[in-house]
């Protein structure tokens, strides 16, 4: 499959703005890029208005680098901070109404499968904790029950950041926020467990202070969603505004939270392991490798 559609038409090359010329000549389309190479190629994310030092920005940046085929990916987002950056990336972005994301993505993915039967078009939902765990909850769960083949990524800043600090279902118990002055009364929703129960083939819990791990999770999740089933990634992406974290301490905070309630967790179904091993050459999931590690135990 030639990637001519991410190049400019002959004659117009030089008239394109610099950002686009860089993207065409030095961008990641059709190439294998990884976070260890950042700084040497043009990223698909452009300048955007999210707050300085926001961990969500970092996570979005890493995810966009990690997409296995950005030229064939559509991202679905919604109201909330994340869309401010995602909409500035050189991948098509669909803005679902607040709460609609997983319903929109279901339709989109099915449409793409019909329209391009011989090709994978990845659909990735990237939305806030409020957007997914509160108002979008039923559509999120039902997309999993129906085994819709796309990836859902929760940008979990444990607050409604975009609207000034209300508590969400993902806020930690006891947290006092600007618009939740009495403190959160009930536990943080255990979404990863719900995802597993509802039938996700891949579930991961990550923090952005391990870029390589973020990259691996996003890659696996998008690949598995192509043929095996729904996948879910939940990322801690602190809001330094609502939680008053000094911007140069954001990574320190991420580390503390990782030790507290965000230890790396990953679940991969047996089908997904087999698929990764057979189709994408993941050696660690090949049958033999699994048997030897089990024998060693």
């Amino acid at each position: 499959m030639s990637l001519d559609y991410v190049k400019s038409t002959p004659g117009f090359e030089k008239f394109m703005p610099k950002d686009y010329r860089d993207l065409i000549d030095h961008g990641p389309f059709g190439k294998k890029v990884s976070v260890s190479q950042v700084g040497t190629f043009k990223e698909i994310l452009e300048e955007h208005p999210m707050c300085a030092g926001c961990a969500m920005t970092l996570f979005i940046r890493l995810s966009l680098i990690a997409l296995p085929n950005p030229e064939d990916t559509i991202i679905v987002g919604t109201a909330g901070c994340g869309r401010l950056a995602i909409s500035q990336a050189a991948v098509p972005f669909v803005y679902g109404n607040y709460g609609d994301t997983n319903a929109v993505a279901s339709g989109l993915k099915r449409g793409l499968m019909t329209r391009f039967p011989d090709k994978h078009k990845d659909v990735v939902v990237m939305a806030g904790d409020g957007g997914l765990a509160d108002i979008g909850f039923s559509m999120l769960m039902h997309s999993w029950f129906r085994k819709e083949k796309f990836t859902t990524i929760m940008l979990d800043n444990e607050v409604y950041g975009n609207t000034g600090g209300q508590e969400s279902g993902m806020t930690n118990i006891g947290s006092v926020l600007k618009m939740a002055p009495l403190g959160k009364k009930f536990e943080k929703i255990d979404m990863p467990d719900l995802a597993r129960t509802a039938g996700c083939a891949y579930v991961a819990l990550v923090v952005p202070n391990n870029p390589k791990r973020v990259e691996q999770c996003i890659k696996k999740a998008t690949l598995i969603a192509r043929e095996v089933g729904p996948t879910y990634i939940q990322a801690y992406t602190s809001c330094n505004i609502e939680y008053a974290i000094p911007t140069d301490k954001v990574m320190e905070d991420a580390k503390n939270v990782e030790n507290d309630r965000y230890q790396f967790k990953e679940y991969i179904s047996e089908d997904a392991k087999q698929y990764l091993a057979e189709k994408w050459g993941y050696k660690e999931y090949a049958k033999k490798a699994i048997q030897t590690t089990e024998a060693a135990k």
Partner: protein
Amino acid sequence: MYLKKEHLYKRDEPYVLKPGPEGYVPPAAASMGIELPDPGEGLIYGCKTNEDAVMEEIAKQMLTGKNPTIFPGPLVLWNWNDHAKIKAQAVLEIANEIPRVMIIPMPDYRPKYPKIEPEEEINPNHPNLTIWHNKIEVCIFVGVHCHYANLTLKMIRAGTNCLTIAVCAEQGHEDAMLTVRDSDDSKLRRLAQVIRKVRESMGIPAPTRPPFGGGKREIVTPEEWTKIRKEGLAMAGNPPKGMPLREGQMPHV
């Protein structure tokens, strides 16, 4: 300045779609009773007219207006398929007939916030910035999807005195002051010829330099331009095999 009252209520007279600035929220031309042209027709200031007459008016405006500019959209700028390729060449043919024309691309529709480079590009969410910065008073849009043409054309009419021309591959655009429809590559080339004819009849000499970028920056050298045109003309006489010569919004064919 908000929506002017007379626009909302006076519907007995035909609405004339002329260059702005028309105020903060100009009415959609369709809501003022302007209809899309039928095949073989175009619109001149909202009025259905024979296509040849529209093309002549386009030529006159582009040759006499201040800082004429062509804004190619994504359907022209990206190499979706072979048709996009030869259509792009036809757009360059048009540029080749207009002295001191600028080509400023609209490569995609992302919001481009917090900043855009108005000399390098135009963005449908704030096209007025590019128009103001480059003091453009007449422009052609080609290859912009309908929904973003809607937005762009209305915003330009709202806040600038620029005359807008939509060379449309579908049914024409009623929010542009001049528009022709069904513009495939052969119609684009016909437009280039009309511009040449009108230019010669007006005694305006042919351009001596290649088209500029925004801010009248030199983008391609005369030698490069000759090469681009030569390749383009070869392509037009000899379209690539198996080329789907149909129009439509779906670029992946």
